[in-house]
């Protein structure tokens, strides 16, 4: 018998080539006749376009094509189509594309892009959300009423790109009770740049009336559809394939460079390569959004949360992008973790004259979890309850109601807290290592979800007995295509993972897929693949039953053979079945599909939500110990422990690798990855010199436990494991720093100057004057609801 493939630490099939420098990422591709492209971008944040003259650039050496807004008529968006490919009439952020050039060499393309004459008339800008929400703020989209609505239901007005609300129970009554303590806090979080090492890059060509784009993306189908929309062509006229991707983390969850290259390829008749420079990536990455949060809770003396309300402002930058969708998540992240008697939450995407923000690993969850967990510790201080005891009492368990009224299944967080306590109790405290510095510790919880959604898979049985899995799945480094999917398919068909060939994403070959992100790939593609294998298996057994003269019901498929139950020597090999099928039924293949079951909210609870409830919740418990240096403000993490709900661990070692990597990205977010925007709307950090990502000397080994057995709709009970590790990190660090310093940490990242401020110049908790104290005063009126 082969050893079981599920739960084993299968190595990665792509590791050898990656270690030998042989893997060809998109940036390593190209070929004969390929042109190089450059994008001319705006260097102001807000302006009227007076004139764009490309003629001087056209006469420059080597130039083969120039494209502008005239060539791309469409606008795209997720809820509202607010985003043109090139700025039309108006510049809305520093770095916005104005034109693109293709030339024989990159230097020629850049020189020509610089030679384009752009005449602008500067307009007033709103750089911060305070400015954008001020009564006299300039409207960033004066035509917002005329934009096509793609998804109805949110409220919109002026610089509020989207507003979603949750209201369950009578919050006013809860806050009016005589027996409650009311705790109120304000928080602020900064942007975080994904900075995958491979920038957004593509090679596009135009052949036989169709676009062919090889690109470094997480979402081949979205690239196909968005490119078509922006260019005004049929989606079927765009083919997207994806080589190995050099990291994504959400940055590559939207179109980026592809439509520019596609237009230039059509205009020049040559393949065109476009890759962002590191500086462009720093200026225009779809960073994790900065957010401002006000949260207020009514809690009884014995720790029951009877009412909670919150307002979350998410800075979407100049265009909505993913943020209107992500406003949904506040209901499940800030509204998650705890049982709430009543709740109302308002979550807004706010336009500013800054680079658009987007998806980043556990999007929306990182800062809402930070705010919620810090707020929870403030509640504990106010009512005099132990923070762990409070969490134990209140965490979501079996039959608990979520904020939108969904009913959770199973006790997951409670047993995970127990497990965390066992792990931390079994080791000595690291306090001695603080050595004169301030020592602190915290345990925090987090609620996240698997962003399930449609996926398709085809499995072809090859004549040699191996199978090929054809999907639109993309390997971005997480291992889902290289480890878990081959394991799942091999397990379904009694093969070894080496028997499973993985076809790289190609929208011409495989069916629709949402893409890799939100922890969905192993789950959605896993189920679709399992379903495809069911059909393949059925066909294999049917052919084998003739060969063995036995009923298919009496046959088993394992170890690469079909045999009769109880008579293992009566068997035929899978290759023999495949050969037989060629002449009887024809080649064997199967297809499978999956989509979100669409768990509903309680009627009337949620407005403006693209997802009303969590189809597949995931939980995490993190603990950390820190030492804060009072002289420098430096925070050292002394220990870090994770208990993560994984459903079932398909490849435990690969999951541990995801946890280590995700927590470390979270430490960067919590402590030193600082994106700051100057008064002119320019992102100050232009490269790795000033944008400090974690290095080998900054980090420590994460101690982790994989919690199995929670309910899951995933394949074999699995849940996605790559997204959630970053969720709780800022919360854990911020709570531990508060514990160490005795100060209320309300802002991340906790850079040394900020920590020093906290220790020395602290002047009480911050106020958000752009969020009204009275929750209802923040809501847009009912007539602001958009309709399609």
């Amino acid at each position: 018998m082969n050893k079981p493939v599920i739960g084993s630490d299968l190595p990665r099939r792509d590791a050898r080539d990656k270690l030998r420098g042989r893997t060809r990422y998109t940036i390593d591709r190209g070929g004969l006749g390929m042109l190089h492209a450059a994008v001319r971008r705006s260097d102001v944040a807000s302006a009227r376009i007076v004139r764009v003259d490309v003629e001087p650039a056209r006469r420059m050496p080597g130039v083969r094509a120039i494209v502008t807004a005239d060539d791309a008529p469409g606008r795209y968006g997720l809820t509202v189509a607010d985003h043109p490919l090139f700025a039309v009439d108006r510049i809305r952020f520093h770095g916005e594309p104005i034109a693109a050039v293709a030339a024989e060499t990159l230097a020629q393309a850049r020189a020509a892009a610089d030679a384009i004459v752009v005449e602008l008339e500067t307009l007033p800008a709103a750089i911060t959300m305070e400015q954008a929400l001020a009564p006299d703020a300039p409207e960033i989209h004066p035509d917002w009423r005329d934009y096509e609505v793609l998804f109805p239901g949110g409220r919109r007005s002026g610089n509020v790109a989207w507003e979603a609300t949750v209201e369950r129970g009578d919050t006013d009554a809860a806050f009016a009770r005589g027996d409650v303590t009311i705790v109120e806090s304000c928080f602020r979080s900064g942007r975080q740049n994904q900075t995958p090492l491979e920038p957004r890059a593509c090679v596009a060509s135009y052949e036989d009336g169709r676009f062919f784009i090889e690109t470094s993306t997480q979402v081949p189908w979205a690239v196909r559809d968005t490119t078509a929309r922006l260019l005004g062509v049929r989606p079927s006229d765009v083919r997207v394939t994806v080589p190995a991707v050099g990291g994504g983390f959400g940055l590559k969850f939207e179109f980026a460079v592809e439509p520019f290259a596609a237009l230039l390829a059509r205009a020049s008749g040559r393949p065109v390569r476009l890759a962002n420079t590191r500086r462009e990536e720093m200026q225009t990455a779809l960073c994790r959004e900065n957010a401002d949060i006000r949260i207020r809770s009514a809690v009884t003396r014995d720790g029951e949360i009877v009412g909670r309300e919150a307002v979350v402002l998410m800075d979407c930058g100049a265009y909505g992008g993913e943020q209107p969708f992500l406003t949904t998540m506040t209901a499940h992240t800030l509204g998650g973790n705890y049982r709430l008697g009543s709740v109302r939450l308002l979550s807004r995407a706010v336009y500013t004259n800054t680079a658009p923000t987007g998806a980043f690993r556990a999007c929306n969850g990182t800062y809402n979890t930070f705010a919620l967990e810090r707020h929870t510790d403030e509640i504990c201080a106010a009512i005099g309850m132990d923070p762990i005891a409070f969490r134990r009492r209140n965490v979501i368990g079996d039959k608990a109601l979520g904020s939108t009224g969904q009913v959770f299944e199973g006790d997951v967080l409670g047993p995970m807290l127990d497990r965390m306590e066992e792990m931390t109790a079994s080791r000595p405290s690291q306090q001695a290592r603080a050595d004169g510095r301030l020592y602190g510790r915290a345990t925090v919880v987090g609620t996240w979800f698997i962003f399930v959604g449609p996926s398709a898979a085809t499995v072809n049985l090859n004549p040699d007995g191996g199978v090929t899995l054809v999907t639109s799945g993309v390997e971005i480094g997480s291992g889902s295509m290289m480890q878990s999917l081959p394991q799942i398919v091999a397990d379904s068909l009694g093969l070894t993972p080496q028997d499973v060939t993985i076809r790289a994403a190609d929208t011409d070959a495989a069916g629709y897929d949402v893409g890799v992100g939100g922890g969905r790939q192993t789950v959605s593609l896993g189920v679709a693949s399992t379903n495809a294998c069911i059909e393949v298996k059925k066909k294999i057994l049917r052919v084998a039953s003739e060969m063995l003269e036995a009923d298919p019901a009496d046959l088993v498929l394992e170890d690469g053979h079909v045999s009769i139950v109880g008579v293992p020597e009566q068997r035929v090999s899978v290759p023999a079945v495949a050969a037989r099928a060629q002449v009887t039924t024809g080649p064997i293949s199967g297809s499978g599909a999956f989509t979100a079951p669409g768990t509903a909210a309680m009627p009337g609870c949620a407005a403006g939500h693209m997802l009303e409830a969590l189809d597949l919740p995931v939980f995490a418990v993190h603990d950390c110990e820190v030492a804060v240096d009072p002289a420098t403000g430096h925070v050292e993490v002394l220990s870090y422990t994770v208990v993560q709900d994984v459903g079932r661990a398909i490849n435990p070692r690969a999951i541990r690798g995801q946890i280590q990597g995700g927590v470390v990205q979270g430490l960067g977010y919590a402590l030193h990855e600082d994106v700051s925007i100057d008064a002119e709307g320019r992102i100050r950090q232009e490269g790795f010199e000033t944008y400090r990502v974690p290095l080998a000397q900054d980090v420590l080994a994460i101690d982790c436990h994989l919690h199995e057995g929670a309910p899951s709709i995933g394949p074999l009970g699995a849940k996605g494991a790559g997204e959630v590790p970053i969720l709780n990190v800022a919360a854990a660090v911020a709570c531990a720093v508060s514990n160490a310093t005795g100060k209320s940490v309300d802002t991340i990242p906790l850079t040394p100057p900020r920590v020093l401020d906290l220790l020395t110049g602290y002047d009480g908790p911050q106020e958000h004057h752009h969020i009204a104290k009275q929750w209802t005063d923040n809501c847009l009126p009912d007539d602001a609801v958009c309709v399609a």
Partner: protein
Amino acid sequence: MSLRVVVNHEERTVASAPLTPLSTVLREEFALTGTKEVCGEGFCGACTVLVDGAPAVSCLVPVGLVEGRRVETVESLAVGEDLSALQAAMIETDAVQCGMCFPGILMTLTGFFSERPDADEEEIRSALAGNICRCTGYEAIVEAALSIRGAGAAASAVEAAS
């Protein structure tokens, strides 16, 4: 006059101008795309190669400066199908994720171990101070490096390659 450089044990003639970054010459002239150009400013280490056996960030080295010298890239580490001890250790610890940082990390550590085969964990981490990995959180990389320490394996891999 054209430049000559010994690249992966083979004498090559460089057509590019002497001020062209070595990383660009390796990638575009010699198709040695294992060397990654990620920042072009010396901060990420993805373009690290060995120049006369010592690690150097090739994006900051004008090719004119390596005239007549030995340059080794990640493509030189494996001999035939045999991975170097360090490469094999990275497979053992399942260190690789997206893989973009590994060419630079392997060259940094290969150069480092040839000087300091018995280095301890802290020294290994400080040797990696100039290499960014955005995916792995470094532990599996450090673990792999520690696993071959002292065995003379890294050093012999370098010798075998030279």
